[in-house]
């Protein structure tokens, strides 16, 4: 594993804080994600994991702190501009365009690469037509990454897809923007064991085939421990630990955060 090797830093969070009224959902977090690694964020429910994703992707603006991607600040950028910088994501509670076809979902993912000015579109200028064609072919390639099912059903509406397949399509949409960094929010949530095992495989394949850095939120320890290069643990908005999986597994604070709470609750 590339766990301890000091690669180039791709994404850096410096003292990032996010408060909602009185609640500090993310509390002075520092993170460094290196190029090419699979980095996992774990932590109990409500720890602030999804909020970190929302801060990185511009859906929320940090209350304080700095977010640096690829050497420049992406703080206060709108989600579409963050995407154009090279960060794509999926959502914990899958947000596909249900009443668009599979193909259309994959095409929307490539929106930044297709001209959408009135002139090019109305007159179907050569650059527009070329971009549409290219996007269509690329969509087919991306769908084919997950085997033949999505390709064969490309004209079907996304709403018809089974749960695990919807997660895949959301990844296809995210890949459309040719991201450098892919954020996956609980990509195996709600999946059975076979589907989870499959997801573990394709997450690793994603990194290889698309030359990606992957930031992962995951509850299932068999997933995070198996594929992560490094793991950060959040609890009540604070980072309580960070390290390679073997270290995290034996960290007292982590065990307490996960198990201690259970004892309290019982």
């Amino acid at each position, binding site marked *: 594993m590339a766990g301890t090797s000091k690669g180039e830093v791709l994404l850096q969070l410096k003292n990032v804080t996010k408060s909602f009224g009185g609640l500090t959902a993310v509390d002075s977090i520092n993170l460094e994600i290196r190029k090419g690694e699979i980095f996992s964020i774990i932590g109990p429910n409500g720890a602030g994991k999804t909020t970190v994703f929302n801060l990185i*992707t511009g*859906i929320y603006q940090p209350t304080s702190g700095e977010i640096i991607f690829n050497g420049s600040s992406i703080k206060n950028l*709108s*989600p*579409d501009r963050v*995407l*154009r910088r090279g960060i*794509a*994501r999926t*959502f914990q509670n899958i*947000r*596909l*365009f*249900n*009443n*668009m076809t599979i193909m*259309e979902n994959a*095409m*929307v*993912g490539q*929106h*930044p690469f*297709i*001209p*959408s000015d*009135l002139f090019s*579109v*109305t007159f*179907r200028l050569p650059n*527009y037509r070329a971009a*549409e064609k290219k996007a269509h072919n690329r969509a087919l390639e991306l769908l084919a990454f997950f085997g033949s099912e999505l390709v064969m059903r490309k004209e079907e*509406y996304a*709403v018809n897809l089974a749960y695990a397949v919807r997660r895949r399509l959301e990844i296809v*949409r*995210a890949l*459309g*923007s040719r991201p450098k960094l892919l954020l996956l929010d609980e990509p195996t949530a709600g999946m059975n064991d076979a589907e989870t095992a499959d997801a573990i495989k394709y997450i690793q394949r994603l990194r290889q085939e698309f030359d990606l850095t992957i930031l992962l939120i995951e509850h299932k320890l068999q997933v995070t421990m198996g594929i992560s290069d490094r793991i950060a643990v959040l609890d009540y908005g604070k980072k309580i630990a960070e390290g390679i999986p073997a270290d995290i597994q034996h960290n007292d604070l982590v065990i307490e955060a996960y198990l201690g709470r259970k004892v309290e609750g019982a």
Partner: protein
Amino acid sequence: MSASPSHFQQKMQNPLKSLGIRKKIGDFLNNTKFLNRSLSWYVTGWRVGVFWGLIALFLPQLLNFSTNFLDQTYFAPNILLLDAILCGIYVMLALGLNIVVGYAGLLDLGYVAFFVIGSYTVAFATSGIIRNIHSQVVNIPALTFWEAIPLAALIAGFMGVLLGAPTLRLRGDYLAIVTLGFGEIVPIVIKDVPFFYGALGFQVPPAPVVNTPFGQVDFGNPLDFSAFYYLTLAVIILIVMFNILLRNSSIGRAWIAIREDELAASASGVNLVRIKLMAFGLGAAIGGIGGVFNGVMTSSISYDQFSFQVSISVLIMIVLGGIGSIPGVIVGAILLRFIDVYVISTISNMLQTNTALANPSNPFHFLVSFNLNTTKFLIFGLVLLLMIILRPQGIIPNKRRQLELKGVGLAPEELSVIGEIEREEEGSSAPPESVEGLGDI
């Protein structure tokens, strides 16, 4: 006595079925042969578009021909043609609003504003008269009618963007209220700002005479509206083509994406500001073009022609026809105009001239003074209510919308013939551009 109540009940339960109108029409179409095929063949699939397209294309000739067997006092061709043109103007409005509401999913209740702007733009631009802030008449260089069309589209489009900009963060009800306010403000500004001659009304010069290689064509001839009719039809066809091009493009996809899930669209790279303003601007520009045609057609415009009722009518048209569906909103516009212009006034006339009702001892005597035109929105409301209960996806549904409604378990599974037609139509570029012919049936 014993048999009649049940018969009556039966009739009440399904008047259409017991009268067998549908069946009769169906039988007629199936059994009548023309060139070895039954008539029903000619009016199914893509051919239905061609059928109505041909009727629209030859409407002036058909109306002239009808004078051979129809009473001219009721069926004066030129007056019917005028109705068809006014109907065509509403078709333009419906197609424009469909971009904002149908594609982008932004509820706009103030669409009349752009209609006003278009009408006044053509009035000022072609008359060459404006007033300064001291109410003095100032002559400005007059533009031709042809130049006024793109100018009105530009100004209305710009105003659409101006309205859109502050409302970008608003959704649903809030957006509806702000746009509603905008639709109210524009006519009031026109009424109260002297510059606009609002309270007096403004004379709009008629459409011009054009010299062509085939002779003079008078678009403004009040005795023969056919030239202007064809102009209206041509503009509608252009707007339809424009809508189709937009719908099947990166812009159309982005509109549908923001309608489906704004956050996910934004996270997929859709610039929300840009794509929403585009919808507002383009919808408004088409409304402005509708306004130009309205201006020259009604020849005298004043603020009170532009009420909230126009916005609501256009919205009802697209809901009735099928939100997001191009043939749907065209049919919706024509149908509502037909109900408005013919059905309501006919019923109203019948009530007022009915001799039995004229008798003061008749318990229904009060109906004589019942002016249906003042209560027509009640009727529209009922039509809409019925539609939402029976067929929420509209007369000619948009595929996607149908799915959305099915998703929440509202829409009946059954697809009517018209629904089938639409599915076949989707790919073809020949929707029924205009069905003005309905006016004579």
